[in-house]
């Protein structure tokens, strides 16, 4: 191998560091600014988001990473003084957890079906799933609304949960994982007299444990930040998840928005830090669209 110059490596490192800093900025700003007092927020950002609260306002925005004084007033305001945010946080939980659980259950069974099917029509159906997975949400916006209406689930959480649970994404990804299970393993179990269901639960599922975990994280993060579906399918503001409600916080309450965004980010952040290896593996395995 050619030796990479020390100089070149330093340049690479600096390049990476600059990129990384830019990528990290919004996360850091959200978290640190959530500990600022209302007056500090107003002084720094009043030039863009006028709250009309008066006091000193800097002429241009003053993006600051470290608060002058760390206070928890925004958190107290959002979590203690007003029940809205916590309520909506639980709305999010009760929408997203069933979606993740449902999608895992439906997809693991379906992926097994795809794995064990050797016929010609298989790749055709799989490609069809891929196409459905890739369709932009807006294409089926109206009919989703109509179908929910016909099924009498419009404006209930089922209108979000059911389409979420049957989304083709995890079927696609999990099939890719399951196809890597050595075929001999399945064949051997069959000779030993295992039923299909036993092969599925005793061999496939344990082999795919890390895959299931990583897909669950991906699905969770995706639905945790959903905005369009609840806006269209849940007209009751009480039923909407925090992701939607956060987007409607008044311009004058930007400090509160940062604090609640930090709270909302926490579950994804913890999952992310805990399962990063699995997550990276999950992303990496998508590799190509061909099954």
């Amino acid at each position: 191998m050619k030796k990479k110059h020390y100089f070149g490596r330093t340049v690479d490192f600096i390049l990476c560091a600059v990129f990384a800093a830019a990528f990290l900025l919004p996360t850091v700003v959200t978290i640190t600014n959530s500990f600022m007092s209302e007056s500090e927020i107003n002084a720094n950002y009043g030039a863009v988001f006028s709250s009309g609260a008066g006091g000193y306002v800097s002429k241009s925005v003053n993006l600051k990473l470290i608060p002058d004084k760390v206070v928890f007033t925004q958190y107290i305001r959002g979590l203690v003084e007003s029940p809205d945010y916590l309520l909506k946080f639980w709305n999010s939980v009760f929408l997203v957890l069933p979606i993740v659980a449902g999608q895992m259950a439906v997809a693991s069974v379906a992926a097994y079906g795809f794995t064990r099917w050797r016929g010609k029509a298989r790749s055709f159906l799989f490609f069809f799933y891929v196409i459905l997975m890739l369709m932009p949400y807006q294409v089926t916006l109206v009919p989703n609304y109509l179908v929910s209406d016909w099924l009498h689930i419009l404006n209930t959480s089922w209108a979000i949960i059911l389409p979420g649970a049957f989304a083709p994404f995890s079927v696609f990804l999990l099939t890719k994982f399951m196809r890597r299970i050595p075929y001999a393993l399945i064949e051997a179990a069959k000779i030993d007299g295992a039923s299909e269901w036993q092969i599925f639960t005793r061999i496939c599922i344990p082999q795919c444990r890390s895959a299931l975990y990583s897909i669950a994280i991906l699905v969770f993060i995706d639905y945790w930040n959903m905005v369009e579906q609840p806006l269209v399918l849940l007209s009751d503001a009480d039923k909407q998840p925090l992701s939607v409600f956060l987007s409607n916080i008044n311009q004058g309450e930007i400090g509160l928005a940062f604090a609640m965004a930090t709270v909302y980010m926490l579950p994804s952040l913890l999952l992310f830090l805990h399962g990063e290896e699995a997550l990276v593996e999950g992303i990496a395995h998508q590799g190509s669209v061909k099954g």
Partner: protein
Amino acid sequence: MDEKKHKRRRPSREQRRDFLRSLCFLFPSLLGVGVFFILPFGVVAYYSVIDGVASREFVGLENFRRLLNNGIFRLAAVNTLRFSAVAVPLAVVLAIVLALLLEVRVPMKSAFRTFFLSPMMVPVASVVLIWQVLFSYNGTVNVFLGLFGAEKIDWLQSDQARWVVVLLFLWKNLGYNMILFMAGIANIPKELLEVADVEGAGELYKFFSIKLRYLSPTVLFVTILSLINSFKVFREVYLLTGNYPYQSLYTLQHFMNNMFGAYDYQKLSAAAMLMALAMVIIIAVLFAVEDWFGKDVEG
């Protein structure tokens, strides 16, 4: 590949049993996909060829003709196309650059990986707030550029608005794409690169003749994924600028969203059909290109 093992000849009775068994396992998914994805699609197709929800008279391609003559639709379609045509190639190329940067032994590699993936978690609301802080008239970018004597502008209401959104799109998606490419690079046979080194091949030659060939399935996947994500950025644009943004930001999604608001389901469905058709064509072309480009490294 197990593909070959799967394809060996079997008696047809067993094939049928195979098929039925797979169908049993696929049944719940097929049912749900049928009700929540295919049925809605059928409804879109039906709505695009009738004249109204009330009279339900078949009008053929009349809705499409009206749509294509609609100036606002054409503006939205062109904007969407132009945005994706800039954003998607950038997302692919920059992700390869990042992956190659991290591939050479940079210290703290896994920390960098984490940082690049962090945008996945940030709630949309705070993304929108921060983009406003950065790009509004009194925002940070103007303050910074002001140091060099640049005029202040309201970025999201200017001809640069598209670039602001491209930046947001790249920020959000580059990390994910980068991971895909890192995995792709890890799968390139090392011997091949070593031989190339021995033969004295340059870095550029190695990249274009070896790495890129092996990466072609990943390039295809990342291109398609980025294309989808370039449509999803509507969420942020909508929250940043509302129903009627600066002209260059008005995309097909705005158009469809506004048609939904106006109960004009015919125009909306026709637009949705055209969009779906365009997607299928683009995906098919990408598949064909990938087949042609990567044919000698597969199998």
